[in-house]
């Protein structure tokens, strides 16, 4: 019988590919509860891969009936990297969570699982663990539950009632791509149908931190166009996903890739932010895809979009917030501050003023009119 420490090693290692960037929850503090989530989220440690640790991220079990080729727990994985199969007892995991939480190692729990038996049985065990934390241990802080493909509506609802955030991994952008890497999941009935239920539960006030999903990028020959089609749809009012995460496919047995291997993932995140935060619509963003349906890796997407935009050069003292957000080198913070200066009728006449409000001058100046100056660019001579 493996010890708790041994289980932590195996089930922590198996969960490290799951992504979660937030620990913030708008839910009200519960009187007498131990811990409460903050509205901003906290990172308690960082890893040499640059990712933060804010949650105890583990699987409940690494036993799994699915054969997804990108997963270390897959039935198709016969490599030497296959680990011994173990499971946490719900009480054991709840105690471990509380121990780490009180030592200020974590902000909460991220609980995922392989599927031992069927999805609903496993969902019950996930629910049992979270319920134990909430009721017996009075744990009031953040819990993210990763739910499993094929989960039933009742089981999903019960988890949604106790978790701050719920996610279901879509992994691939469409049914045919999923079929290329997994023969045991049905895209529509196992993944899209439960995702739709999440939309309903959220509307009814459950899942205070919303629901998210994750893609494995590069495990098939899917194009960025296919991925973005799904992404834009999931951010639309029909689905209302809070966040979507992208993870480059890392073959289990392959050697360490070059850093440039991850550039596609970076570009997808940039497009994601331009859509969610900078308010670019899906048509605009799709316009920068190349003929093969991929985001050009060489140039920053916002720069490519700005070059196509005919609103430039913008007069910095008259531009609106939305216009400013389209300038490369200007973000939310600097746009907000520039609008504040406009309101106070402070004229921006020198680039140093822009630098003080947080604008990246080198990137922004070619698109701005500051004082009476407009920076000359190579395009002016073409």
């Amino acid at each position, binding site marked *: 019988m493996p010890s708790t420490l041994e289980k932590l090693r195996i089930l922590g290692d198996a969960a*490290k590919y799951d992504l979660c960037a937030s620990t913030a929850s708008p839910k009200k503090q519960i009187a007498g509860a131990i811990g409460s989530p903050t509205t901003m989220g906290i990172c308690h*440690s960082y890893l040499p*891969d640059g990712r*933060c640790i804010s949650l105890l991220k583990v699987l409940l079990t690494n036993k799994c009936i699915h054969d997804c080729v990108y997963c270390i727990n897959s039935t198709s994985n016969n490599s030497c990297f296959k680990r011994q199969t173990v499971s946490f007892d719900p009480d054991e995991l709840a105690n471990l969570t509380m121990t*780490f939480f*009180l*030592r200020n190692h974590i902000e909460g729990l991220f609980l995922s699982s392989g599927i031992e038996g069927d999805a609903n049985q496993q969902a019950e065990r996930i629910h049992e663990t979270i319920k134990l934390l909430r009721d017996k241990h009075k744990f009031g802080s953040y819990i993210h539950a990763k739910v499993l493909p094929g989960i039933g509506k009742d089981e999903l609802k019960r988890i949604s009632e106790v978790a701050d955030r719920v996610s279901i991994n879509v992994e691939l952008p469409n049914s045919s791509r999923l079929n290329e890497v997994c023969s045991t999941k049905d895209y529509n009935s196992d993944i899209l149908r439960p995702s739709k239920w999440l939309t309903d539960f959220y509307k009814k006030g459950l899942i205070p931190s919303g629901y998210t999903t994750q893609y494995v990028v590069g495990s098939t020959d899917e194009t960025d166009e296919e991925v973005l089609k799904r992404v834009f749809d999931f951010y639309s009012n029909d689905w209302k996903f809070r966040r979507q995460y992208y993870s480059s496919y890392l073959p289990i047995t392959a050697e360490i*890739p070059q850093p440039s291997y991850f550039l596609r993932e970076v570009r997808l995140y940039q497009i994601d932010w331009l859509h969610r*935060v900078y308010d670019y619509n899906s048509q605009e963003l799709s316009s920068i895809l190349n003929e093969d349906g991929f985001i050009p890796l060489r140039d920053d997407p916002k720069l490519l979009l700005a070059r196509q935009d005919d609103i430039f050069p913008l007069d910095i003292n008259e531009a609106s917030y939305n216009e400013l957000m389209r300038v490369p080198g200007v973000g939310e913070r600097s746009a907000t501050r520039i609008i504040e200066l406009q309101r106070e009728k*402070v004229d921006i006449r020198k680039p140093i003023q822009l630098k003080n409000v947080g604008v990246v001058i080198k990137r922004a100046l070619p698109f701005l009119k500051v004082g009476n100056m407009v920076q000359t660019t190579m395009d002016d001579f073409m």
Partner: protein
Amino acid sequence: MSVFRQTPARQLVKAASYHVDSTEEFNEEARVLLVSAPYEIITKCSEMGVLINKRASAVYREANQISSFVKFEPLPEMILVGECVLEHNSFPIISRWICNRLKNFIILIFTQKTFFVASNRKDIGSFPEFNGDSREEVIEHVRNFARESFDERIPEDYFIEEGELYWKEYYETQFLEQRTNLKLFHQFLPKKVLEKESLRLEREFLEKITLKNDLNHTLDDFLEED
């Protein structure tokens, strides 16, 4: 969807006043600016506005690092004991943040020269004045205060022996070697911050992987041993 929230000018002035270099004269000047032209503080469009922001950022950075990275040792009487090195007088911010998250605990933090006690518990009075000679004395005093004030205790199950070993094992499992990115790592944990005692685990693990992957050469590596 906007993710940015501008810190109000009033809060920036307050935070800047906790900076180690902020004198009464500076604080007064900042308060005057807050009344006459608060937008200068938010937009950093004057020298004083820049300075207030710079000092407030330093204080917030310290408060954020301490409240994220301080490691607590729990004691049964709902007490969490931590240790940190403070450069600024940022404890009011740190205690507010930590106590908001851990409402029913008494937080006891030792710094280089002194210690701080804070709690959001409603069932205790103010902590009596006490100047202990040693760390043990201070802890015992706070434990007695807690024992006399309430009956709630931390369950024994949470006191896992070798809790630090569990954390170390967990931390190491989360590392994705294929994605090693030390530049990004140091953006979050600059070398100066990494020297802090509460980040010993991160520091030692970094040394281990740089050695293993041969990422860190110095000139000495190319010189022959005598």
